[in-house]
């Protein structure tokens, strides 16, 4: 009797992980609320001007580390979710995109990708995306959060977390109004630290309204959406294995939609740009974003990642012309630079004096 080698497999047994292309470095050159575009390009130019020299330096450093052919892309995030004064008219995507392009040209670099924050809550892979081209990104990331257990948690009870909140420690017990003077107990960060830095992040709130869906619609916080944004830049989000929020490039004759909600999550503005997703993500931001970036890091520290997705990125990095070793913790691929808020008043020493002297 001879042994016959037989194998049988079903493709649906293990999820296929869709690969995404990688740049070496993705630089976020700014982040603005839609309202800031209503008054023209001043705020935008201020940010891009601040970012310019750091972008230049990071490009130089990336080429030194990863070789002359290092792939580097730039991006810009527009917050189209912050509540809007109804009296004012919302700038259209085409207007904002033109402003970003001209401001970029003025300060000397191109913004390759423009993303909108609503596209971080729900991924849209193309303009006018229908239900099949959308992925609930914020739901996916929120669902991947693993709450940190308190000492004594053995699985008997579901995680004790406050719904919609994530903290890095044990909260201070709530003090009830009692006759006795209540004894205050401090919160404590989990981990081996002698002193705590206790952070409690609001991930979402629920709308209180009337109707059948009242209280069920989640409004995701900028902390969670920032986490989604950084994960997208690192190429770590999948919807059941599928890549999501893939950048969309509009054709030459193709018009931009009028509504932000009809825009793809990420729009490619430079046709031959290096990939949006990258091994390293650098954010050049005004200091006011520090808190939400820190909160996003707390979220990242509590995420379970798909091992196959991490391995895919690590293997690709190792296979580069200049091999790169990625850290085990994806948060170690993110770096920040926060600007000061100081602007010169005197005649500027470069060509942008028209703007720099405006306040005089």
């Amino acid at each position, binding site marked *: 009797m001879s042994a016959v080698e037989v194998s049988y497999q079903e493709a649906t047994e293990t999820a296929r992980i869709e690969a995404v292309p990688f740049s070496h470095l993705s630089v976020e050159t700014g982040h603005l609320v839609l309202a800031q575009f209503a008054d023209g390009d001043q705020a935008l130019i201020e940010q891009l001007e601040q970012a310019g020299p750091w972008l230049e330096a990071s490009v130089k450093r990336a080429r030194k580390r990863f070789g002359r052919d290092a792939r580097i892309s730039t991006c810009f995030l527009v917050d189209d979710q912050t509540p809007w004064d109804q009296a004012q008219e919302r700038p259209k995507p085409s207007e904002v995109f033109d402003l970003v392009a001209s401001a970029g040209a003025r300060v000397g670099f191109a913004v390759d990708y423009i993303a909108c924050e609503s596209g971080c809550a729900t991924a849209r892979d193309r303009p006018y995306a229908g239900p099949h081209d959308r992925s609930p990104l914020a*739901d996916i990331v929120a*669902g*991947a959060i*693993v709450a940190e257990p308190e000492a004594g948690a053995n*699985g*008997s009870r579901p995680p004790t977390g406050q719904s919609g909140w994530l903290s890095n420690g044990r909260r201070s017990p709530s003090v009830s109004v009692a006759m006795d003077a209540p004894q205050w107990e401090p919160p404590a960060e989990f981990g*081996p*630290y002698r002193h705590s830095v206790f952070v409690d992040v609001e991930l979402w709130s629920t709308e209180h309204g009337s109707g059948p869906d009242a209280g069920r619609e989640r409004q995701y916080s900028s902390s969670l959406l920032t986490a989604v944004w950084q994960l997208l830049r690192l190429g770590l989000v999948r*919807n059941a294995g599928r890549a999501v929020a893939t950048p969309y490039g509009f054709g030459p004759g193709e018009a931009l939609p009028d509504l932000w909600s009809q825009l793809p999550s990420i729009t490619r503005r430079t046709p031959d740009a290096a990939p949006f997703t990258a091994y390293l993500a650098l954010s050049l931001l005004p200091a006011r974003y520090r808190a939400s970036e820190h909160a996003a890091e707390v979220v990242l*520290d509590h995420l379970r990642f798909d091992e196959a997705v991490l391995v895919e990125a690590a293997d690709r990095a190792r296979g580069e012309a200049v091999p790169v070793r990625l850290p085990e913790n994806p948060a170690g691929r993110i770096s920040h630079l926060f600007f000061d808020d100081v602007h010169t008043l005197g005649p500027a020493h470069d060509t942008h004096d028209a703007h720099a002297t405006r306040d005089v």
Partner: protein
Amino acid sequence: MPPATSERGGAPPTTGPGGHRPPVLAFGEVRTCLLQNQAALSPSAVTALVQLSPGSPVSRVERPVHRAVSADLLTGVDCGLHVLRHGRGRAIGTVLSHAIVTGGRVLQGSAYVTLLPAASRERQAWRHYLRRPGVAEIIGSPDPDNVLDGFLDDQPPARGLDLASISDRIVEDVQQSSVLDHGTALRASATTTRWAASLRPDSTLAVGIVKSHMTNAHVIRLRGHPDDLPTLLRFCEEFALHEWLLATVRDVVVVRAEHAVAQDRDPLDSLLFALNQLMPLWMPPRYLNARIKELWDGLERRTHYELVFLRATERVRDLRDQMRIRPPRRI
């Protein structure tokens, strides 16, 4: 003796070169029951049912029987272990749990965790544990055999790791889904299977099954190589499924039908349910791989499970035929 706490910004806690050490123990618990739905669920409905968190992949196969498995959920734990005889230990890490639906009919909640000695005497930052999902590190050095016996011996309310509650929660979550119509196709009990494996590189495969003094509960003690873990887990889940099928057909359907016949009532519905819905799901997992075949063949030699199930099947057909020859007078 290292200090109990450390200052932030110091040297990061090292896991040492053994950062990926093999586990020494694995514990699990499987809860098996009927899905609360009148009809068998279609494959696409099952996929929607076991997508427990948004965007998570569902693993499914069509042959030999339709089986869908949810992605694993993680539950953080930090608790004392229930150690028998002597010794103490604290386990910190994550427990994995998933839902399995077989044939659109039978639901299983399966929770499991592997254990290994911690490299450090203190709790680490959370991302340290998230790096290895399904691993809990033991602080303290209790004897693994005592930890294993302690887990198998633990009674509710659990004093150590409570995998029963975690597997129950998976079942409850699925049963509450809006995909289901919450109808009862057959009144049948849920069963529990608790298992614990001692994993050593020099171990040969061994399995010992004890039917517990509690109803519908089995305890499995296993031994194997650390690489056998996926096989051992699947073996226990398959044992739980087949034990549930056997218990439901023989101890529920047949017993009730005999009682009904004696009282001149019609037991045909539940007999046909067993024949049409449950018996096709009997598919011992020998086809999976050589290791699991060894385990199942060993189980079969000792228990004649398949023969017992075959007899139960014959008995169901007998009772059905009797109904044709002499229909009941009372309905």
